[in-house]
């Protein structure tokens, strides 16, 4: 007799907790979804406004985008910056990570941590004045090469850190046999290690792309002519410099600018997973 009400109370309490929990998760989901809702509705609306509303379906906004001289070129510029940085970072990063993973270089861990720390400290804003000057002095100001090199320098420490962890987990027996057949270190890296490390390289490439694709400050400072600006900066000028913001243009541009990187991210995430490796546990 006394057990039943207690058990009933316990299940009732469990039920209330579950409801509250689901409610909290819905609120969290809503918080993240609310700003994003604009991005998926307004590009398709005949008269886009700041308010999220069920769209009056049309693709008219995308033809406005196609006619704008800066919009498409800026996406091209973003691609140049992104692919350039990926090329530099993946090549130099895998060389360095492989050496660090296979050879006991004195002070290796200290070096890695110091670089990682420095990169998260310096890439932000603290170094913008010297970087600006360095680019002026070397004549790289207002060039895509300058931005690619500066971005690569900032991203490389993290890339090396992640890749080294990946390469540490690759069994060494393949390399041993390749070496038995007389392969040189460069060949071993290219023909044996790189194919096995492909998930790591893919993850690093996408991670670097996401960093570069959205990077606003470096191109904003280092590139002066609007023809050379990537989409991240053009997007900003679209909503600040014109008196009345052209929402048809902005909405379509936001979507076109966001979709590639979102797709790539989720594709790679699904295929290879987002993993944290031993090294980051401190």
């Amino acid at each position, binding site marked *: 007799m006394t057990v039943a009400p207690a058990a009933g109370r316990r299940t009732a309490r469990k039920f209330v907790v579950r409801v509250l*929990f689901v409610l909290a*998760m819905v609120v*969290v*989901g809503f918080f*993240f*979804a609310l700003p*994003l809702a*604009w991005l998926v509705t307004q590009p398709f609306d005949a008269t886009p406004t*700041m*308010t999220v509303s069920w769209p009056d379906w049309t693709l008219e906004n995308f033809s406005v985008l196609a006619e704008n001289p800066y919009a498409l070129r800026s996406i091209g510029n973003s691609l140049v910056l992104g692919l350039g940085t990926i090329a530099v970072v993946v090549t*130099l990063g895998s*060389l*360095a990570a492989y*050496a*660090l993973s*296979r*050879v*006991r*270089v004195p002070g290796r861990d200290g070096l890695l941590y110091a*670089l990682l*720390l*420095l*990169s998260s*400290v*310096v*890439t*932000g*804003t*603290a170094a*913008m*004045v*010297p*970087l600006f*000057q*360095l680019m002026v002095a070397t004549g790289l100001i207002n060039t895509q090469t300058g931005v690619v*090199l500066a971005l690569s320098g*900032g991203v*490389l420490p993290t890339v090396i850190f992640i890749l080294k962890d990946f390469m540490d987990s690759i069994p060494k*027996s393949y390399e*041993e046999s390749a*070496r038995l057949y007389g392969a040189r*270190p460069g060949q*071993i*890296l290219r023909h044996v290690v790189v194919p096995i490390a492909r998930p790591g390289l893919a993850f690093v490439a996408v991670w670097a792309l996401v960093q570069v694709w*959205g990077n*606003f*400050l470096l191109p904003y400072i280092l590139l002066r002519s609007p023809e050379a600006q990537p989409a*991240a*900066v053009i*997007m*900003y000028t679209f909503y600040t410099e014109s008196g009345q913001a052209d929402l048809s243009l902005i909405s379509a541009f*936001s979507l076109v*600018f*966001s979709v590639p*990187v979102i797709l790539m*991210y*989720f594709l790679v995430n699904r295929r290879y997973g987002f*993993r*944290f490796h031993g090294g980051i546990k*401190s």
Partner: protein
Amino acid sequence: MSLATASTQPPRGRRRPRPADVAGLGRAGAGVFMAPALALIGLFLIFPALWTIYLGMTDYRLTGLAAADPQFVGLDNYTAVLGDAGFWRSLRLTLVFVLLSGVVGQTLLGFSVAWGLRRLRPWAKSVVETLVLAAWVVPTSVGAFLWLALLDRRDGTLNRILDTPGTAWLIEYPMASIVIFNIWVGTAFSMLLFSSALGAVPPSQLESARMAGASTWQQLRDVVLPNIRGHILTNTLLITLWTFNTFTPYLLTAGGPSGRSEILPVYIYRTAIPGGQLGVGAAISLLMLLINLVIALGYMRLGRERRRR
């Protein structure tokens, strides 16, 4: 694999690790492999950091006489900056921003979401996960515009929902706006990190805690937290540094109105580039680097003490 190694290698003590240098690189080869990356890092990461020290002691300007021939002014920039009320206000705003949006907001929300996800059905889990991740992956200038639209004074969605027409959120509550915006942008990282950390907590420990009648709160405190302490520290360190150095709030409020959301990165930018005072900007940058370094060393010491205990 163990068979193969046993047959090709001479027997040896079982605790001894296999030779690391399987590719026959040698120290010299390793140096050659590392040189290009280190050169790039040295030129674009370490050199600017060191150059900041020199620059901060000159009156270098973007334009005019001092641009052609900068003079050495010693510590003048530093005394000027430290005597400037604007700097101290900016530093205070930055600390509030880092504490609320980084340490409290992103870490707590990220952990709660990671913890909550484990109790959701797979479809609900992937919906929530996708939303949080999408906010992170969307390019920052798009994310910033999404918030400008949400908070717009005339027909922003928030004013529609709350039925508060004409409320200019970015002008009336600039700090709260950028704090919440930054939580929205950055929570995904903590969520991912804590998801993988929680996955590594031994289920048997949680099971026995549950058998012993521990409440959720007790399980969290006595089983989960001790297991993921290292992750919490790494996460908080990275989040603190990233939040401290982020420039993104500039896209939302540009530091305004009248400097009420002018966190340090924005303050440096406004001093150095539009303001033209590169020397003073570099001096503030160096102060910021030092603060960052102190924070990082503090966390690392904390980590070392924890491990020793």
